[in-house]
């Protein structure tokens, strides 16, 4: 699985519904009748995936929320986003 380019724009797939509970996300994939729970960072990324902002802008947002280097955030965001695409939760807009 290749990390995504930071200029990529992702959105939640149409069949995905989620609820944030104590910073984690309970996610339902309606098409697969599947329930998954995402940790805090993955839940945050799911929230940011609005189909109009790039991964780079997500890094900007997260840089204000987490004490981590930009390099680390860029690597983690690209990696997490790719995982969520592979899990069928996000897609390229």
């Amino acid at each position, binding site marked *: 699985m290749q990390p995504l380019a930071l200029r990529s724009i992702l959105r939640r797939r149409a069949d995905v519904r989620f609820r944030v509970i*104590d910073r984690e996300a309970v996610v339902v994939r309606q098409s697969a009748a599947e329930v998954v729970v995402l940790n805090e960072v993955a839940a945050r990324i799911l929230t940011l995936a609005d189909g109009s902002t790039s991964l780079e802008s997500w890094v900007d947002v997260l840089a204000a929320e987490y004490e981590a280097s930009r390099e680390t955030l860029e690597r983690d965001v690209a990696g997490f986003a790719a995982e969520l695409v592979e899990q069928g939760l996000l897609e390229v807009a």
Partner: protein
Amino acid sequence: MSFGEQFLVHPDLFPARRSGETWGERELVIDLPGGPYLFTGLNAGQEAHVRRRFGSFCGLGAGSPPAVETRFFRAAEADFREIDTRGWEYGLDLDFGLAAVRVAGLRLMARLDWRPGLAAAVWTPDAGGEAFAGIFENAFRALVSYRLLESGGVVLHGAALARRQEGGGAFLFLGRSGAGKSTVSRLGMERGLTVLSDDLNALLPGELPGAAVATVAAATAVVKLPFTGDVGEPGAPSPPHPLRALFRLEKSAEEAVSPLSRAEVVGCLLACSPFLNTDPYRRETLVSILSALVPRSLPAYALRFSLTGRFWELPELA
């Protein structure tokens, strides 16, 4: 496959409203959470088999106005496909709508309609017998699930076991088919616990008298439903038990518990909520109710257990 095609010869002729020729004039009341549930349009044989299946749950609440009426109608044998049930895992086909839910199953068609209050109808070619009791129960399970949601509660696939001492509370073990609910139930019975149901139980909000707020989730109660799996019979009604702890089942060669986050608990409950977890019109309400039923004080764990039953010695199950 479109709705009803698995079970019905002409799914496009599914009844559009509660009407038809009833089987008879017999009726009975069953009182479960969300009820009383009134069933009408039955013949004597059908009524007798339902009473035999649900035992002392029948007749309770007969003095109270029914919360829901379900009317039974005749259907033709030719309306239903013949299905070879050998090795077949039974399931219902549901078609979700905002004002109605349609249900198709083995020799069964049913509607739940909100107008705005909930009313239900069942069509079957089965005049009575053991098969009818199964048809009745399949429709009833769906009905209770929807009705309970209106009361702020949920029906869950899981085994509930209660300590026999008064105020001992109940443990809930969650998992889909094959997770080990019946095994946990049998192992618990060997250790003197009471199995409420090893298949479906209700989780309801509400304070329970005598519950120790500091040690149990007193805001959530487990209520027995007469829908059992491999262990036991429907038996008799049981009073609500305060929920002591919740366990997500995982089969293993050894015993171990690990705590679950609140999100993981809600996710587990959502996965174990039959019918409603695939209903797009009610899933948001379901998640809200599940979140409300899971206070931060509720002990919740992933439980890896073996067939030795030693997990009952874990401090989390004391």
